[in-house]
Protein backbone atom coordinates (compact mmCIF):
# COMPACT_ATOMS: atom_id res chain seq x y z
CA UNK A 1 0.00 0.00 0.00
CA UNK A 2 1.31 3.44 -0.92
CA UNK A 3 0.74 6.54 1.16
CA UNK A 4 -1.61 7.92 -1.52
CA UNK A 5 -3.80 4.81 -1.32
CA UNK A 6 -4.05 5.22 2.43
CA UNK A 7 -4.85 8.92 2.05
CA UNK A 8 -7.74 8.18 -0.31
CA UNK A 9 -9.25 5.64 2.08
CA UNK A 10 -8.83 7.96 5.06
CA UNK A 11 -10.51 10.89 3.28
CA UNK A 12 -13.48 8.64 2.58
CA UNK A 13 -13.41 7.52 6.21
CA UNK A 14 -13.59 11.16 7.34
CA UNK A 15 -16.42 11.88 4.89
CA UNK A 16 -18.43 9.00 6.32
CA UNK A 17 -17.80 10.07 9.90
CA UNK A 18 -18.64 13.72 9.31
CA UNK A 19 -21.73 13.36 7.15
CA UNK A 20 -23.36 10.06 8.21
CA UNK A 21 -24.33 9.32 11.78
CA UNK A 22 -23.83 5.63 12.76
CA UNK A 23 -27.07 3.61 12.38
CA UNK A 24 -27.20 2.64 16.06
CA UNK A 25 -27.11 6.30 17.13
CA UNK A 26 -29.84 7.20 14.64
CA UNK A 27 -31.96 4.31 15.92
CA UNK A 28 -31.47 5.42 19.52
CA UNK A 29 -32.52 8.98 18.65
CA UNK A 30 -35.58 7.67 16.79
CA UNK A 31 -36.62 5.58 19.76
CA UNK A 32 -36.24 8.56 22.05
CA UNK A 33 -38.74 10.69 20.15
CA UNK A 34 -41.60 8.42 21.17
CA UNK A 35 -40.69 8.71 24.85
CA UNK A 36 -41.06 12.49 24.93
CA UNK A 37 -44.31 14.27 25.59
CA UNK A 38 -46.18 15.24 22.41
CA UNK A 39 -45.61 18.88 21.53
CA UNK A 40 -42.82 19.32 24.07
CA UNK A 41 -39.59 21.17 23.34
CA UNK A 42 -37.75 17.89 23.89
CA UNK A 43 -39.74 16.15 21.17
CA UNK A 44 -39.26 19.07 18.85
CA UNK A 45 -35.49 19.19 19.44
CA UNK A 46 -35.16 15.46 18.69
CA UNK A 47 -37.16 15.83 15.51
CA UNK A 48 -34.95 18.69 14.38
CA UNK A 49 -31.87 16.56 15.12
CA UNK A 50 -33.24 13.67 13.05
CA UNK A 51 -34.15 16.00 10.19
CA UNK A 52 -30.67 17.38 10.33
CA UNK A 53 -29.05 13.95 10.22
CA UNK A 54 -31.02 13.05 7.12
CA UNK A 55 -30.32 16.34 5.40
CA UNK A 56 -26.57 16.08 6.06
CA UNK A 57 -26.45 12.64 4.49
CA UNK A 58 -28.43 13.79 1.48
CA UNK A 59 -26.25 16.84 0.97
CA UNK A 60 -23.01 15.04 1.83
CA UNK A 61 -22.37 17.89 4.26
CA UNK A 62 -21.14 17.94 7.88
CA UNK A 63 -23.83 16.94 10.38
CA UNK A 64 -22.60 19.69 12.68
CA UNK A 65 -20.51 22.72 11.74
CA UNK A 66 -18.15 21.92 14.58
CA UNK A 67 -16.51 18.97 12.88
CA UNK A 68 -14.54 18.29 16.06
CA UNK A 69 -11.11 16.89 16.77
CA UNK A 70 -10.33 13.86 14.61
CA UNK A 71 -9.19 11.12 17.00
CA UNK A 72 -7.99 7.86 15.44
CA UNK A 73 -7.11 4.44 16.81
CA UNK A 74 -4.91 2.55 14.37
CA UNK A 75 -4.20 -1.18 14.62
CA UNK A 76 -1.34 -2.25 12.34
CA UNK A 77 0.57 -5.45 11.49
CA UNK A 78 4.17 -6.03 12.39
CA UNK A 79 6.43 -4.15 10.00
CA UNK A 80 3.97 -1.44 8.96
CA UNK A 81 5.30 2.10 9.25
CA UNK A 82 3.44 4.13 11.82
CA UNK A 83 5.18 7.24 10.53
CA UNK A 84 3.67 6.68 7.09
CA UNK A 85 0.22 6.01 8.57
CA UNK A 86 0.45 9.15 10.72
CA UNK A 87 1.45 11.24 7.69
CA UNK A 88 -1.37 9.74 5.63
CA UNK A 89 -3.92 10.60 8.33
CA UNK A 90 -2.64 14.17 8.57
CA UNK A 91 -2.84 14.60 4.84
CA UNK A 92 -6.32 13.10 4.76
CA UNK A 93 -7.44 15.66 7.34
CA UNK A 94 -6.11 18.48 5.17
CA UNK A 95 -7.80 17.07 2.06
CA UNK A 96 -11.08 16.52 3.86
CA UNK A 97 -10.92 20.13 5.04
CA UNK A 98 -10.40 21.30 1.48
CA UNK A 99 -13.42 19.26 0.43
CA UNK A 100 -15.49 20.80 3.25
CA UNK A 101 -16.07 17.48 5.02
CA UNK A 102 -14.24 19.18 7.88
CA UNK A 103 -14.14 22.81 8.94
CA UNK A 104 -10.67 24.39 9.43
CA UNK A 105 -10.74 23.59 13.11
CA UNK A 106 -7.16 23.94 14.41
CA UNK A 107 -6.19 27.15 16.19
CA UNK A 108 -2.69 28.10 17.37
CA UNK A 109 -3.05 28.29 21.14
CA UNK A 110 -0.53 31.12 21.45
CA UNK A 111 -1.32 33.41 18.52
CA UNK A 112 -5.01 32.53 18.20
CA UNK A 113 -4.57 32.07 14.46
CA UNK A 114 -6.38 29.31 12.63
CA UNK A 115 -3.92 27.04 10.81
CA UNK A 116 -6.41 27.11 7.95
CA UNK A 117 -5.98 23.52 6.79
CA UNK A 118 -7.55 21.54 9.63
CA UNK A 119 -4.30 20.01 10.89
CA UNK A 120 -2.11 21.28 13.68
CA UNK A 121 0.07 20.25 16.59
CA UNK A 122 -1.68 17.20 18.06
CA UNK A 123 -4.47 17.39 15.46
CA UNK A 124 -5.38 14.77 14.33
CA UNK A 125 -4.76 12.81 17.51
CA UNK A 126 -3.63 9.25 16.65
CA UNK A 127 -3.18 6.16 18.84
CA UNK A 128 -1.22 3.20 17.47
CA UNK A 129 -1.30 -0.45 18.47
CA UNK A 130 0.43 -3.42 16.79
CA UNK A 131 -1.63 -6.57 16.39
CA UNK A 132 -1.37 -10.08 14.94
CA UNK A 133 -3.73 -9.39 12.04
CA UNK A 134 -2.21 -8.60 8.60
CA UNK A 135 -4.60 -5.69 7.94
CA UNK A 136 -4.56 -2.05 9.01
CA UNK A 137 -7.69 -1.01 10.84
CA UNK A 138 -8.60 2.56 11.70
CA UNK A 139 -11.39 3.63 14.07
CA UNK A 140 -12.11 7.32 13.76
CA UNK A 141 -14.07 9.62 16.02
CA UNK A 142 -14.87 13.29 15.46
CA UNK A 143 -15.03 14.72 18.95
CA UNK A 144 -16.96 18.00 19.21
CA UNK A 145 -15.73 20.92 21.26
CA UNK A 146 -18.92 21.72 23.17
CA UNK A 147 -19.14 18.20 24.57
CA UNK A 148 -15.39 17.98 25.19
CA UNK A 149 -15.75 21.06 27.40
CA UNK A 150 -18.10 19.21 29.76
CA UNK A 151 -15.78 16.19 30.16
CA UNK A 152 -14.53 15.88 33.73
CA UNK A 153 -12.17 13.91 35.99
CA UNK A 154 -12.96 13.12 39.64
CA UNK A 155 -10.52 12.12 42.35
CA UNK A 156 -12.04 9.71 44.84
CA UNK A 157 -12.91 9.89 47.66
CA UNK A 158 -15.15 12.92 47.04
CA UNK A 159 -16.73 14.09 50.26
CA UNK A 160 -19.20 16.50 48.64
CA UNK A 161 -20.82 13.57 46.84
CA UNK A 162 -20.16 10.97 49.52
CA UNK A 163 -18.25 8.99 46.90
CA UNK A 164 -15.81 6.38 48.18
CA UNK A 165 -13.33 4.27 46.27
CA UNK A 166 -15.73 1.67 44.94
CA UNK A 167 -18.34 1.25 42.20
CA UNK A 168 -20.96 3.04 44.29
CA UNK A 169 -18.55 6.00 44.40
CA UNK A 170 -18.23 5.76 40.61
CA UNK A 171 -22.00 5.84 40.27
CA UNK A 172 -22.26 8.96 42.41
CA UNK A 173 -19.68 11.02 40.51
CA UNK A 174 -20.98 9.94 37.10
CA UNK A 175 -24.48 11.15 37.99
CA UNK A 176 -23.00 14.41 39.27
CA UNK A 177 -21.15 14.89 35.98
CA UNK A 178 -24.43 14.65 34.07
CA UNK A 179 -26.01 17.33 36.27
CA UNK A 180 -22.99 19.57 35.80
CA UNK A 181 -23.11 19.14 32.04
CA UNK A 182 -26.85 19.95 31.80
CA UNK A 183 -27.62 20.31 28.07
CA UNK A 184 -24.35 22.09 27.29
CA UNK A 185 -22.68 19.14 25.61
CA UNK A 186 -25.60 19.01 23.15
CA UNK A 187 -27.61 16.36 24.98
CA UNK A 188 -28.68 13.63 24.56
CA UNK A 189 -25.17 12.28 24.87
CA UNK A 190 -23.15 9.13 25.43
CA UNK A 191 -20.81 8.82 28.42
CA UNK A 192 -17.44 7.13 28.16
CA UNK A 193 -16.22 6.39 31.68
CA UNK A 194 -12.80 5.19 32.83
CA UNK A 195 -12.34 3.88 36.35
CA UNK A 196 -8.72 4.03 37.52
CA UNK A 197 -5.58 4.79 35.55
CA UNK A 198 -3.79 8.12 35.83
CA UNK A 199 -4.88 11.55 34.65
CA UNK A 200 -3.79 10.86 31.07
CA UNK A 201 -4.70 7.21 30.62
CA UNK A 202 -8.08 7.87 32.24
CA UNK A 203 -9.13 10.30 29.53
CA UNK A 204 -7.71 8.03 26.83
CA UNK A 205 -9.68 5.06 28.09
CA UNK A 206 -12.87 7.10 28.50
CA UNK A 207 -12.67 8.12 24.83
CA UNK A 208 -11.90 4.56 23.79
CA UNK A 209 -15.12 3.44 25.50
CA UNK A 210 -17.05 5.76 23.18
CA UNK A 211 -16.07 3.53 20.26
CA UNK A 212 -18.27 0.72 21.55
CA UNK A 213 -21.61 0.39 19.74
CA UNK A 214 -24.53 1.50 21.92
CA UNK A 215 -25.88 -2.04 22.14
CA UNK A 216 -22.54 -3.49 23.24
CA UNK A 217 -22.86 -5.12 26.64
CA UNK A 218 -19.93 -5.00 29.03
CA UNK A 219 -18.30 -8.43 29.39
CA UNK A 220 -18.01 -7.85 33.13
CA UNK A 221 -21.41 -8.54 34.69
CA UNK A 222 -21.01 -6.01 37.48
CA UNK A 223 -19.99 -3.25 35.07
CA UNK A 224 -22.76 -4.19 32.64
CA UNK A 225 -25.24 -3.73 35.45
CA UNK A 226 -23.74 -0.37 36.42
CA UNK A 227 -23.86 0.83 32.81
CA UNK A 228 -27.55 0.01 32.61
CA UNK A 229 -28.31 1.55 35.95
CA UNK A 230 -26.47 4.77 35.11
CA UNK A 231 -28.27 5.05 31.79
CA UNK A 232 -31.61 4.71 33.58
CA UNK A 233 -30.75 7.03 36.44
CA UNK A 234 -29.07 9.57 34.17
CA UNK A 235 -32.33 9.85 32.26
CA UNK A 236 -34.28 10.22 35.51
CA UNK A 237 -32.42 13.50 36.05
CA UNK A 238 -34.85 15.04 33.55
CA UNK A 239 -32.35 17.29 31.77
CA UNK A 240 -33.54 16.23 28.34
CA UNK A 241 -32.43 17.05 24.79
CA UNK A 242 -30.50 20.36 24.73
CA UNK A 243 -31.31 20.71 28.43
CA UNK A 244 -34.95 21.56 27.64
CA UNK A 245 -36.19 19.01 30.18
CA UNK A 246 -37.51 15.59 29.19
CA UNK A 247 -36.93 11.87 29.26
CA UNK A 248 -33.84 11.63 27.05
CA UNK A 249 -30.63 12.91 28.58
CA UNK A 250 -28.34 9.99 27.75
CA UNK A 251 -28.24 7.49 24.88
CA UNK A 252 -25.61 5.25 26.45
CA UNK A 253 -23.06 4.75 29.22
CA UNK A 254 -19.89 2.73 28.62
CA UNK A 255 -17.42 1.91 31.37
CA UNK A 256 -13.82 0.71 31.14
CA UNK A 257 -11.43 -0.15 33.96
CA UNK A 258 -7.69 0.44 34.33
CA UNK A 259 -5.58 -0.55 37.28
CA UNK A 260 -4.37 2.28 39.49
CA UNK A 261 -1.75 3.22 42.04
CA UNK A 262 -2.72 2.60 45.64
CA UNK A 263 -2.63 6.37 46.19
CA UNK A 264 -5.01 7.38 43.37
CA UNK A 265 -8.55 6.60 42.32
CA UNK A 266 -9.60 8.62 39.28
CA UNK A 267 -12.96 8.43 37.57
CA UNK A 268 -12.81 10.09 34.17
CA UNK A 269 -15.81 10.95 32.05
CA UNK A 270 -15.86 11.93 28.39
CA UNK A 271 -19.16 13.24 27.10
CA UNK A 272 -20.07 12.64 23.48
CA UNK A 273 -22.84 14.81 22.01
CA UNK A 274 -25.77 13.47 19.99
CA UNK A 275 -23.58 14.05 16.91
CA UNK A 276 -21.73 10.89 17.93
CA UNK A 277 -19.60 10.65 14.83
CA UNK A 278 -17.52 7.52 14.48
CA UNK A 279 -16.52 5.34 11.53
CA UNK A 280 -14.08 2.56 10.80
CA UNK A 281 -12.15 1.04 7.94
CA UNK A 282 -10.14 -2.12 7.45
CA UNK A 283 -7.48 -2.14 4.76
CA UNK A 284 -5.86 -5.35 3.64
CA UNK A 285 -2.76 -5.17 1.53
CA UNK A 286 -3.86 -4.86 -2.10
CA UNK A 287 -7.56 -5.20 -1.27
CA UNK A 288 -10.42 -2.69 -1.31
CA UNK A 289 -11.13 -0.89 1.93
CA UNK A 290 -13.82 -2.52 4.01
CA UNK A 291 -16.08 -0.05 5.83
CA UNK A 292 -16.90 -0.87 9.42
CA UNK A 293 -19.84 0.51 11.34
Amino acid at each position, binding site marked *: MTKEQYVDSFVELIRRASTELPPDVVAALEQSVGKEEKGSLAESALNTILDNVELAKERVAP*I*CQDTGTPVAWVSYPQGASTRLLQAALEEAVRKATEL*NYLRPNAVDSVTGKNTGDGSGRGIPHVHFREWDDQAVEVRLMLKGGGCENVGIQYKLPDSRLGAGRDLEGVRRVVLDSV*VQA*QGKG*CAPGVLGVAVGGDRVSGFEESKCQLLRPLADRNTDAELAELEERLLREGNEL*GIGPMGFGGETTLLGVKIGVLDRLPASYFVTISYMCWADRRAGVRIENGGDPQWLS
Partner: protein
Amino acid sequence: MAELKLPVDEKTIREIRVGANLELSGRMITGRDAAHKWLIEECREEILPYLEGTVIYHCGPVVRQNPDGSYTFVAAGPTTSIREEPYQADVIGQYGLRGVIGKGGMGQKTLDGLGKHGALYLHAVGGAAQVLARAVKRVENVFMLEEFGVPEALWVIEVEKFPVMVTMDSHGGSLHDEVEKKSEQELERLLAVS
Protein backbone atom coordinates in the same frame (compact mmCIF):
# COMPACT_ATOMS: atom_id res chain seq x y z
CA MET B 1 -45.67 25.75 16.15
CA ALA B 2 -46.28 29.50 16.12
CA GLU B 3 -44.77 31.70 13.45
CA LEU B 4 -43.04 34.93 14.44
CA LYS B 5 -42.32 37.58 11.84
CA LEU B 6 -39.22 39.73 12.17
CA PRO B 7 -38.82 42.60 12.82
CA VAL B 8 -41.25 42.48 15.72
CA ASP B 9 -42.61 44.95 18.31
CA GLU B 10 -42.15 44.93 22.07
CA LYS B 11 -45.77 44.13 22.88
CA THR B 12 -45.70 40.90 20.86
CA ILE B 13 -42.47 39.83 22.53
CA ARG B 14 -43.83 40.43 26.02
CA GLU B 15 -46.72 38.07 25.27
CA ILE B 16 -44.39 35.16 24.53
CA ARG B 17 -43.26 32.97 27.44
CA VAL B 18 -40.71 30.27 28.17
CA GLY B 19 -41.66 26.95 26.60
CA ALA B 20 -42.94 28.32 23.29
CA ASN B 21 -41.87 26.69 20.07
CA LEU B 22 -41.43 29.29 17.32
CA GLU B 23 -40.63 29.50 13.65
CA LEU B 24 -38.97 32.76 12.70
CA SER B 25 -39.37 34.41 9.32
CA GLY B 26 -37.87 37.67 8.14
CA ARG B 27 -34.62 39.46 8.81
CA MET B 28 -32.00 38.67 11.45
CA ILE B 29 -28.27 39.24 11.89
CA THR B 30 -25.43 36.98 13.01
CA GLY B 31 -22.78 38.02 15.48
CA ARG B 32 -20.42 36.41 17.95
CA ASP B 33 -17.46 37.54 20.07
CA ALA B 34 -15.82 40.08 17.76
CA ALA B 35 -19.18 41.49 16.66
CA HIS B 36 -20.43 42.07 20.20
CA LYS B 37 -17.25 43.80 21.22
CA TRP B 38 -17.41 45.96 18.09
CA LEU B 39 -21.07 46.86 18.63
CA ILE B 40 -20.49 47.93 22.21
CA GLU B 41 -17.36 50.01 21.77
CA GLU B 42 -19.23 52.84 20.03
CA CYS B 43 -22.64 53.23 18.44
CA ARG B 44 -22.47 51.88 14.90
CA GLU B 45 -25.00 54.11 13.14
CA GLU B 46 -24.74 52.29 9.82
CA ILE B 47 -25.95 49.04 11.31
CA LEU B 48 -28.82 50.39 13.44
CA PRO B 49 -31.54 49.87 10.82
CA TYR B 50 -30.57 46.21 10.51
CA LEU B 51 -30.80 45.53 14.23
CA GLU B 52 -33.89 47.39 15.35
CA GLY B 53 -36.73 45.05 16.20
CA THR B 54 -34.95 41.92 15.11
CA VAL B 55 -32.69 39.30 16.75
CA ILE B 56 -28.97 38.59 16.82
CA TYR B 57 -27.90 35.01 16.15
CA HIS B 58 -24.81 33.61 17.90
CA CYS B 59 -23.52 31.71 14.92
CA GLY B 60 -20.25 31.30 13.06
CA PRO B 61 -21.58 30.08 9.73
CA VAL B 62 -19.86 28.31 6.88
CA VAL B 63 -20.61 30.48 3.83
CA ARG B 64 -20.05 29.83 0.15
CA GLN B 65 -19.54 32.64 -2.35
CA ASN B 66 -21.32 31.97 -5.64
CA PRO B 67 -19.91 32.82 -9.10
CA ASP B 68 -22.22 35.88 -9.29
CA GLY B 69 -20.75 37.26 -6.04
CA SER B 70 -23.75 36.40 -3.85
CA TYR B 71 -23.43 34.24 -0.72
CA THR B 72 -25.07 31.01 0.43
CA PHE B 73 -25.12 29.67 3.99
CA VAL B 74 -23.78 26.11 3.96
CA ALA B 75 -23.82 25.33 7.69
CA ALA B 76 -25.33 27.53 10.36
CA GLY B 77 -25.73 25.97 13.82
CA PRO B 78 -25.68 28.03 17.02
CA THR B 79 -22.58 28.60 19.12
CA THR B 80 -22.38 28.82 22.93
CA SER B 81 -24.03 32.06 24.06
CA ILE B 82 -22.57 32.55 27.50
CA ARG B 83 -19.40 34.09 26.02
CA GLU B 84 -21.45 37.20 25.14
CA GLU B 85 -22.79 37.56 28.67
CA PRO B 86 -20.71 40.69 29.47
CA TYR B 87 -22.08 42.53 26.40
CA GLN B 88 -25.49 41.12 25.61
CA ALA B 89 -27.85 43.19 27.75
CA ASP B 90 -26.21 46.44 26.59
CA VAL B 91 -26.25 45.43 22.92
CA ILE B 92 -29.96 44.64 23.23
CA GLY B 93 -30.70 47.99 24.88
CA GLN B 94 -28.54 50.12 22.66
CA TYR B 95 -29.71 48.72 19.32
CA GLY B 96 -33.32 47.89 20.10
CA LEU B 97 -32.94 44.16 19.57
CA ARG B 98 -35.93 41.95 20.44
CA GLY B 99 -33.99 38.81 21.05
CA VAL B 100 -30.95 36.61 20.92
CA ILE B 101 -30.57 33.17 19.34
CA GLY B 102 -27.91 30.79 20.57
CA LYS B 103 -27.36 27.69 22.64
CA GLY B 104 -26.81 26.88 26.29
CA GLY B 105 -28.71 29.86 27.71
CA MET B 106 -27.33 33.00 29.36
CA GLY B 107 -26.84 34.51 32.81
CA GLN B 108 -28.61 36.83 35.17
CA LYS B 109 -27.38 40.05 33.56
CA THR B 110 -28.89 39.07 30.22
CA LEU B 111 -32.08 37.80 31.88
CA ASP B 112 -32.48 41.19 33.57
CA GLY B 113 -31.81 42.89 30.23
CA LEU B 114 -34.53 40.83 28.54
CA GLY B 115 -37.00 42.04 31.17
CA LYS B 116 -35.91 45.65 31.02
CA HIS B 117 -35.93 46.03 27.25
CA GLY B 118 -38.54 43.45 26.23
CA ALA B 119 -36.63 40.67 24.50
CA LEU B 120 -36.34 36.85 24.38
CA TYR B 121 -33.61 34.26 24.51
CA LEU B 122 -34.27 31.79 21.72
CA HIS B 123 -32.52 28.42 21.80
CA ALA B 124 -31.64 26.83 18.47
CA VAL B 125 -30.89 23.11 18.38
CA GLY B 126 -27.16 22.70 18.89
CA GLY B 127 -25.46 20.91 16.05
CA ALA B 128 -28.38 21.22 13.64
CA ALA B 129 -26.17 22.97 11.09
CA GLN B 130 -27.96 21.71 7.99
CA VAL B 131 -31.56 22.24 9.03
CA LEU B 132 -30.75 25.78 10.14
CA ALA B 133 -28.75 26.61 7.01
CA ARG B 134 -31.72 25.44 4.93
CA ALA B 135 -33.91 28.02 6.68
CA VAL B 136 -31.60 30.83 5.54
CA LYS B 137 -33.08 31.94 2.24
CA ARG B 138 -30.93 34.91 1.34
CA VAL B 139 -27.92 36.91 2.47
CA GLU B 140 -28.95 40.54 2.37
CA ASN B 141 -25.79 42.25 3.53
CA VAL B 142 -22.60 41.65 5.49
CA PHE B 143 -20.57 43.89 7.82
CA MET B 144 -16.91 43.56 8.87
CA LEU B 145 -16.28 40.58 6.59
CA GLU B 146 -12.71 41.64 5.72
CA GLU B 147 -11.78 42.55 9.26
CA PHE B 148 -13.34 39.65 11.18
CA GLY B 149 -13.46 36.81 8.64
CA VAL B 150 -16.45 34.65 7.71
CA PRO B 151 -17.42 33.14 11.09
CA GLU B 152 -17.16 36.40 13.05
CA ALA B 153 -18.64 38.82 10.49
CA LEU B 154 -22.14 40.27 10.93
CA TRP B 155 -24.31 38.63 8.28
CA VAL B 156 -27.73 40.16 7.61
CA ILE B 157 -29.89 37.25 6.51
CA GLU B 158 -33.46 36.54 5.53
CA VAL B 159 -34.85 33.37 7.06
CA GLU B 160 -37.99 31.33 6.59
CA LYS B 161 -39.41 29.03 9.27
CA PHE B 162 -36.25 29.09 11.33
CA PRO B 163 -36.99 26.77 14.33
CA VAL B 164 -36.22 28.02 17.85
CA MET B 165 -37.39 27.36 21.40
CA VAL B 166 -38.01 30.14 23.92
CA THR B 167 -35.93 29.33 27.00
CA MET B 168 -35.68 32.79 28.62
CA ASP B 169 -38.36 35.47 28.51
CA SER B 170 -39.02 39.09 29.49
CA HIS B 171 -40.78 38.08 32.73
CA GLY B 172 -37.75 36.59 34.44
CA GLY B 173 -38.53 33.06 33.28
CA SER B 174 -35.60 30.78 32.49
CA LEU B 175 -36.04 27.17 31.49
CA HIS B 176 -32.32 26.64 32.12
CA ASP B 177 -32.68 27.58 35.79
CA GLU B 178 -35.79 25.41 36.13
CA VAL B 179 -34.21 22.31 34.58
CA GLU B 180 -31.02 22.75 36.56
CA LYS B 181 -32.87 23.02 39.86
CA LYS B 182 -35.03 20.04 39.10
CA SER B 183 -32.07 17.90 38.07
CA GLU B 184 -30.24 18.83 41.26
CA GLN B 185 -33.23 17.65 43.29
CA GLU B 186 -33.34 14.41 41.32
CA LEU B 187 -29.64 13.92 41.94
CA GLU B 188 -30.15 14.36 45.65
CA ARG B 189 -32.88 11.75 45.53
CA LEU B 190 -30.69 9.31 43.61
CA LEU B 191 -27.74 9.85 45.94
CA ALA B 192 -29.90 9.18 48.98
CA VAL B 193 -30.12 5.55 47.88
CA SER B 194 -27.08 3.45 47.10
